[in-house]
């Protein structure tokens, strides 16, 4: 039996504009509301994606966001071609951050982004290569 075709969304995240960061996550949140998903599940999707989107803008100069909405879950794939992560184990620790003070002054860079994505998603996969980029895949049951 084949799985039902998902609702597919794609956004290019602009890396040069901090003020507009989060627009893709907003659009996905709105779409999930329109579909009538449980608000608690929508919030988990929104937070996970927003954290990834902010990371893309602040650390990687933007990237691509792919969202597949199934009746039972949402799959997020966030890919960038930024500097990559040297030590993933360290990066996953709460409070560890390589963010500059300029990023902290914007209210981010406290080392909670990646742990937060993992916390709010039911499946979390992070792959990264230094100099090539980072991809985060998340599945959130709805």
């Amino acid at each position, binding site marked *: 039996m084949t799985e039902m075709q998902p609702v597919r969304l794609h956004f290019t995240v602009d890396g040069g504009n901090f*003020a507009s960061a989060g627009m893709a996550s907003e659009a996905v*949140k709105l779409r999930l509301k329109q579909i009538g998903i449980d*608000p608690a599940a929508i919030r988990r999707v929104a937070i996970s994606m927003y954290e990834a989107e902010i990371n893309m803008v602040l650390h990687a100069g933007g990237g691509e966001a792919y969202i597949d909405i199934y009746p039972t879950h949402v799959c997020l794939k966030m890919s960038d071609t930024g500097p990559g992560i040297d030590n993933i184990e360290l990066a996953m620790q709460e409070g560890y951050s390589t963010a500059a003070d300029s990023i902290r002054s*914007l209210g981010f860079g406290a080392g*909670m982004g990646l742990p937060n994505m993992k916390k709010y998603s039911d499946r979390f996969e992070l792959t990264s290569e230094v100099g090539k980029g980072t991809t985060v895949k998340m599945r959130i049951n709805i």
Partner: protein
Amino acid sequence: MNIKDIVRLLDADIICGSDRLETEVKSACGADMMSDVLAFVKDQSVLLTGLSNPQVIRTAEMMDMVCIVLVRGKRPDAMMQELARAKGIVLLCSRHRMYSACGILYKNGLGAGETCV
């Protein structure tokens, strides 16, 4: 408590959302790091912050918050105001510092909701 009570208690200016002042709020949190709001906040409807940029509005929207209070006399720029209007979030400004603003609201019955991480 409703948002109108917050305006009165914190002697706050209403930047936008004056048509939503009767909205009831049950808990609040204070943070300048949006990372912390995203990580630790759960079901709080009011955010008190000294940070003033558009991501404060986006963070509040992701968390389904209904009211933001900028403390320490911070003022929102035009984009922040526009975003708050578009998202239907009440935006207030108070000259109180974070500690006193939180204390005043707490003393008057606006709790912290879930306090353990």
